[in-house]
């Protein structure tokens, strides 16, 4: 009988205790963040989407080599003489046209290892984390600031320069050979003397 009454009282009392707890929580401000309109405060050294400031990029390929998942793809073309590519913000002279700078964020593991080797600090983490896509291909970001035609142009320029150089080189070689041949014809003893001297 005593247990019976005690049970009854205990049940009633604990319900009131529980109700007190829930009532107190009504007046505690909600912890909910109204997400798309209110963004949560991210930690200071958050690691999210990468950004490359192409004005500072010298195309040194160090980030691509540091990347553990090979998500950075860089192609560069040497500039031809007379082209001024300007300097980076910390005074380094740029010598290469960057014709490809793709980062595949589907592969990226947000490890930040590419950020540290950069000599000009042009690749860094931003606070953007909402960039979902419907196509995996859309996650490949192209950071190059050159227009597609310009990229082709730069490559062509360099190739032409190479061809020209080759031609010059060939011409120079031909000329040298001709000169040599002419010299040989004019002074046939000289090389012999040389040979003799060497033999001595």
């Amino acid at each position, binding site marked *: 009988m005593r247990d019976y009454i005690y*049970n009854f009282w205990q049940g009633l009392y604990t319900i009131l205790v529980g109700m007190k*707890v*829930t009532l107190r929580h009504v007046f505690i*401000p*909600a*912890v909910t963040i*109204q997400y798309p309109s209110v963004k949560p405060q991210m930690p200071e050294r958050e690691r999210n989407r990468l950004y490359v400031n192409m004005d500072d990029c010298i195309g040194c390929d160090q980030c691509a080599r540091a990347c553990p998942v090979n998500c950075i793809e860089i192609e560069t073309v040497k500039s031809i003489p007379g082209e001024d590519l300007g300097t980076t913000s910390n005074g380094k002279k740029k010598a290469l046209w960057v014709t490809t700078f793709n980062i595949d964020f589907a592969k990226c593991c947000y490890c930040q290892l590419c950020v540290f080797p950069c000599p000009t600090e042009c690749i860094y983490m931003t606070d953007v984390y909402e960039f979902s896509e419907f196509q995996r291909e859309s996650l490949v970001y192209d950071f190059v600031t050159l227009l597609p035609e310009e990229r082709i142009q730069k490559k062509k320029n360099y190739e032409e320069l190479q061809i020209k150089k080759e031609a010059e080189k060939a011409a120079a070689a031909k000329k040298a050979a001709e000169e040599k041949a002419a010299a040989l014809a004019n002074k046939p003893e000289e090389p012999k003397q040389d040979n003799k001297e060497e033999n001595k």
Partner: protein
Amino acid sequence: MMYDWLYNLTGSELLAMFIVSLLPLFVFILPFALLAVLAERKVSAHMQDRLGPMRTGYHGILQTVADIIKLLQKEDLVPTATDKMLFNLAPLLTFIGSYAAFAVIPFSGFFIGTKIDLGIIFIVGITGLVVAGILMAGWASNNKYSLLGAMRSAAQIISYEIPTLLIILTIVMLTGTLSLYDLSEMQTAYFWNWLILGGPAVGIQKILLIPLMMMGCLIIYTSTLAEVNRTPFDIPEAESELVSGYHTEYSGMKFAMFFLAEYANMFAVSAIVAIMFFGGYQSPFGYLGNTLGWSWLVPIEQFSWFTSKGVFFVLVQMWLRWTLPRFRVDQLMAFCWKYLIPFSFVILLLVGLIALI
């Protein structure tokens, strides 16, 4: 009275009857259900340190309106293996059962469906239709979880009818009336005339009645809470065990009917508690209308007192829902048969003895 007033206004018995019978639905139950569902969601959210619906309108106040529009637009799905007729009849029956109870509930001295003398008995009887509707829904769904829910519901409602009826019997014995209107009129003037504080009686009788009445109020509130299948007595629709019990297979407007019936029932049982123990539509301290001599203001005041009492008890139901975990089936039955019924018998006996003094 509302009916006479409308009869004089329109000159047509049929029209007046029609309006009077529909008035509680459109003036009261639908807006109440909309607000109560919203309140339920907001209250539960804030009790759990959340915010609840926030997108639809300012702080989500239009959420339930949007829900209703969605439910109205939904396709009326009837699963192939169901018993079609019973399946379609069940939500109607459930809603009729809970809506019919409003016929005898006095919203104010002026606005009451019918002033029949058997008010309480009528409510107890007609809400039996809800059990039939729930069982019908569970059976017709041809789904084991629905049937389990419905069986549990029937068992629960039938068990908890007993303490409810015993407390009602106590009140009837004390006051000598079954009419809810007379019951409300009896507890007029000031709050110390409310039955929770011993009723209009004076002297030693009143003092002796106070603890018994408080006990009785607690018992009838608990048992009616069980009758409307709400937490902690929500084993018929136990989400974690039975998906959602008897209305698992329902969608669209039929589901909305069950929902509306549940909320109408919630208010009906709160109203019964308010009428039987807290003076019904009576103000706790006189009327402004009487003081100023504006007799038209009194029914409006009474209506607002009644709704605020009812809504307060509905809010307490919600508060309990988000505080307490669900009963186990054996605990449910033990609580009814081992605690509520003996206590209500003791109250019945003691009140009978006091009434003899």
